[in-house]
Each structure stands twice: as structure tokens, then as C-alpha cells.
């Protein structure tokens, strides 16, 4: 079932001479884990903001084409309506936390929606548990690390129980270990709760293994869109300048030189190692 349907979407920021995304069409199905990647300036950040209506409502500018999210016209439905279906987590953890305690921040969206106190308490507890930060509930944002702050941001979005969570380069400012924790949280939300996840990332070596669906953008257009393994094994992707995981590149190099490895493209070092061991045992 298609949760997001985009048809020929083109958007130009106010005052810009060229569109940031042009003629973008894509479909995201319920329960998918989608990875969107591409070089800087390819339009992926712009695309994220169309999912909940920030573009065009907050940013103004010119939007052409259709975008339907959770069966709503994202361009026309007010962002506060879309917020119930699509949660957006941004790059900088610091600028997503406004309150003086974690609890209050996680409840922020629910307060805006006018939920009852009991309902809010339940949802806040639930969201804190799922993101593993229950013990941080009374902390103030300034006392926490970037990784912890980002988990609060995810909990805050999660509390509104959207069908889709979109994360725009959420680990840019985090060290690899904190980044991994974030990916683990997102992965479990997708696998265990069935939340559709859209992750914008550069670091494919850390994230490709989670995604079943990958979209590679370049200069405002979608260049590749499909099953992760199929897309990443396509040699044309090397021309775009995205960070193909080293394990995948190594696999390709081995194959080209005649190694007798199975056909499935590995997306992580574990997969490659396993594949290699099996080939040895034959």
C-alpha cells in the first residue's frame, strides 16, 4: 500500500533561479525503510520538507506536481495536520529541543495537539522507553550529549505516533558510536512497530544494510530508485559520487577478477565475510 506518492514534483525556493528538485516521482510503501542519498545539493533535504508540508507552506516558493502522504495532499493540508502522520527529525539535535526537561520536550507535540494529561503521560513513557532514554526524563537538554539529544528528538516525534518518520542526516554531528545507537533505534522502530522510515544519509557503509529501498538523487532529480542491493550493484551509481560501502566495492572488484562468489551484493562487512567463508568451504 502506497503511503507516499509523488508525481512529477518540482520546487523552486523563493528568489531562486533554478528548482531544487525537478520532476521527482517516487512511491514509498507502508513499512518500508527507505534510504535517500546523493551528493550535497542534490535536493534530498528539500524533498524531506515536502513530506510534511514545510515546503511549500513554511518556505513559500513555487511547488508543481502532486504529493500525497497518508492519503492527504501534503502541499495543501496544514503542517500541524500532517504532523500527526509524518514526523520529521532534523540534522542538528540542539535546535530541536525547546523545553527545560526531556519529558516536556517529548510532550510538546502532544500538548500542541491538545491531548489529555493521562494520554500524554502514557505516550511520553512509551516513547522514552522505545528510544532507551527513560532514565533521562528529567534532564535538561544542555546536560546531554548530541546522541542523547537526538534520541529525545526522535522520542518527541514518536510520541505523536506518526505512520512515517523522516530523518534528515540525523547523525551528521554525532560520533560513530552515537550514530550507531541512533540507527539501531530507527531500525527497531521500523522492524518492531512497522513505522515507515525515510532516512537521508551520506554514510551508506553504516546504513545501507537497513534499507530495503534506496533512492539516489543528483542535481534535483532522482537517478536511481529501487531495491538497495540492485541499485548499489549497478556500476552507474559510481558516477554520481555517493559513498558506496567499501565491502560492496571490494566484492565487485573480486567478482571482476574472477572470484567465485554468490550473486547477492553485500552491503556490510559481515555479509561479505560470510559470503567469502562460504565460497572458501566450497
Amino acid at each position, binding site marked *: 500500500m502506497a503511503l507516499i506518492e509523488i508525481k512529477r514534483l518540482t520546487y523552486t525556493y523563493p528568489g531562486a533561479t533554478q528548482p531544487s528538485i525537478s520532476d521527482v516521482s517516487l512511491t514509498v510503501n507502508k513499512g518500508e525503510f527507505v534510504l535517500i542519498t546523493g551528493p550535497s545539493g542534490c535536493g534530498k533535504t528539500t524533498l524531506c*520538507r515536502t513530506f*510534511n508540508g*514545510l515546503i511549500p*507552506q*513554511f518556505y513559500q516558493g513555487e511547488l508543481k506536481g502532486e504529493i500525497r502522504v497518508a492519503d492527504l495532499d501534503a502541499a495543501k493540508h*496544514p*503542517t*500541524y*495536520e500532517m*504532523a*500527526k502522520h509524518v*514526523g*520529521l527529525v*532534523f540534522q*542538528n539535535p*540542539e*535546535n*530541536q*529541543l*525547546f*523545553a*527545560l*526537561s526531556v*519529558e*516536556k520536550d517529548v*510532550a*510538546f*507535540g*502532544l*500538548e*500542541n*495537539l*491538545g*491531548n*489529555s*494529561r493521562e494520554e*500524554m*503521560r502514557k505516550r*511520553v513513557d512509551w516513547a522514552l522507553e522505545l528510544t532507551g532514554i527513560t532514565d533521562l526524563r528529567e534532564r*535538561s*537538554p*544542555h546536560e546531554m550529549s548530541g546522541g542523547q539529544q537526538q534520541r529525545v*528528538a526522535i522520542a*518527541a*516525534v514518536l510520541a*505523536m505516533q506518526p505512520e512515517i518518520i523522516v530523518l534528515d542526516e540525523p547523525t551528521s554531528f554525532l560520533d560513530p558510536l552515537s550514530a550507531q545507537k541512533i540507527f539501531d533505534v530507527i531500525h527497531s522502530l521500523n522492524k518492531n512497530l512497522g513505522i515507515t522510515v525515510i532516512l537521508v544519509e551520506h554514510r551508506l557503509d553504516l546504513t545501507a544494510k537497513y534499507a530495503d529501498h534506496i533512492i539516489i538523487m543528483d542535481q534535483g532529480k532522482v537517478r536511481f530508485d529501487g531495491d538497495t542491493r540492485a541499485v548499489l550493484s549497478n556500476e552507474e551509481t559510481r558516477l554520481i559520487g555517493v559513498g558506496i560501502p567499501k565491502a560492496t566495492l571490494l566484492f565487485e572488484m573480486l567478482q571482476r577478477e574472477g572470484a567465485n562468489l554468490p550473486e547477492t551484493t553485500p552491503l556490510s562487512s559481515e555479509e561479505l565475510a560470510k559470503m567469502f567463508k562460504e565460497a572458501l568451504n566450497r
Partner: protein
Amino acid sequence: MSRGLGGSVFDGLKFRKVSSPIHNLDPRMKFVYVIAIFVAAILFNAIIPLAILFVTQLPFVLLARVQRQWLRSLRGAAFLALFIFVINVASSFLTHGYRLLAMDWENAAAMTMRFVVLVESFSVFFLTTSPDHLGLALEQSHVPYEFSFAFTTAVRFVPVLAEEAQTIMDAQKARGLELEKGNFMKRIRNYVPVLIPLIVSAIRRSLELAEAMESRAWGATKKRTNLYALKLHKGDYALLAIIILILAVTAYSFLFVHVPTVRSLFGFA
């Protein structure tokens, strides 16, 4: 990060996280208390009632366990208090024909004491009320949500901006900027490379905050609910009783009691 013995009047205004009965009181009731003290301090002109007012607040300071910070605020206010004293004496001197009577000294002392009483009560208030408690009080006092939100968000970002200012200064110092050198005008110009990035960053930050707020359903309904609720407890009612008592005694003394002046007690004119 503490400035040791120096202290300033601002030290007496920063919230201290301690568990005390005063800290747990409803901020709204505490604020009413501060107003009551303010009214009493304004009504009395004489030193004895003002001194009594000063002493009545001491139990609160001790109960709240904020003696040290409170003393620091008084120390910081000492300069201003001295200034008030001197001004009062000087103006009496000039208006009474270049001489000073016992009453002039007493009046100056009274004005100074009034200032001290006010600083004392505000200090206890801010020392025992956390910013989120304050924000909550604002929210529940039917102040439009935008204002209490602006307040708590501002407080939340103060340490962030302070750190950023330090980072920017470091970055510019690393390019040869010398902030301490030069005459007054040059020094002001030297701060431009620090202020501009700070302002630009603040603007960018606001934009990102606005995006995050919109994405969390800001503006969805006019009837915003609240995770917390401030409820009045026994302690608050006790404070209310004290407030009423203070106001009653103040009103009675003001209207009916002739307060002796110190000089009359000592036999001066």
C-alpha cells in the same frame, strides 16, 4: 566556573537546585508573597518597620538553604545601597540648609533598608524558583502561550549561546584578532567579528527551531494542554496565611499605629 568570593548581584538571582520546602512552593504563591512584601515596603517610611520586614524574611532564606547565594546578592547590592544612602543624605543636606539632623540619617537608613528588603525578597524568589517552574506559572496564569514559550526557550538557549560566543571568540582570536588591545573605539570595532557570526547563527537557529516547532504540530489547536499542572498544596496555603497576616499587620500599623522613630527612642529630636 564559580567566581569565588567576588560575587555579584546576579549570583543571587540564579536558580539553585536544592530540595527545600520553599523550592516546592507554587511559584505563583511565591510571587504574590513578593508583591505583598513590595507593597509593605512601599507603605512604610520608617526604619523600624522596614527592619522588621527585613528580619521576617530571614526564616525563608534559611528554610530554602540558599544563605550563601543570598548573602552574595546582598553583597552585590551593597554598592547600590551605599549609593542610595549617600544620595539621600546629600539631598537632605542640601534641602535642610546645609545641615544634617538626626532625622535625615534615619530617613536615609530607611530608604536604604527599603531597597535591601526588595532585593532580599526578589533574590529569594529567583533562587528558589527554577525557570521551568516559572514558565509553567506563566502558562497557567493565562499569559498567552507564545510569551511563556519565548521565555522558557530563551532561558534554555542562554548556555548554548554563551558557549557559542566563546567558540566564535576563539575562532577569531585564532585569526589574529586581539580583543584586549586598542583604545575604546577600536575595542568596540573588534567585537564586530564576534557579534556578526553570533547574530547570524542566532537567526539560523531560530529558523531551525521554527521548522521543528511546525513539524511538531505548533498551532494545531487554540486549546493547548499541559503535561504538568501546578497545584496548590498545604505549604502554599500556609504561605497564603502568612501573606494575609503580613498585609493585615501592615494595614493596621499604617493606619493606626504610631511607629516610634529610632531617634525618639534614643532621645534625639
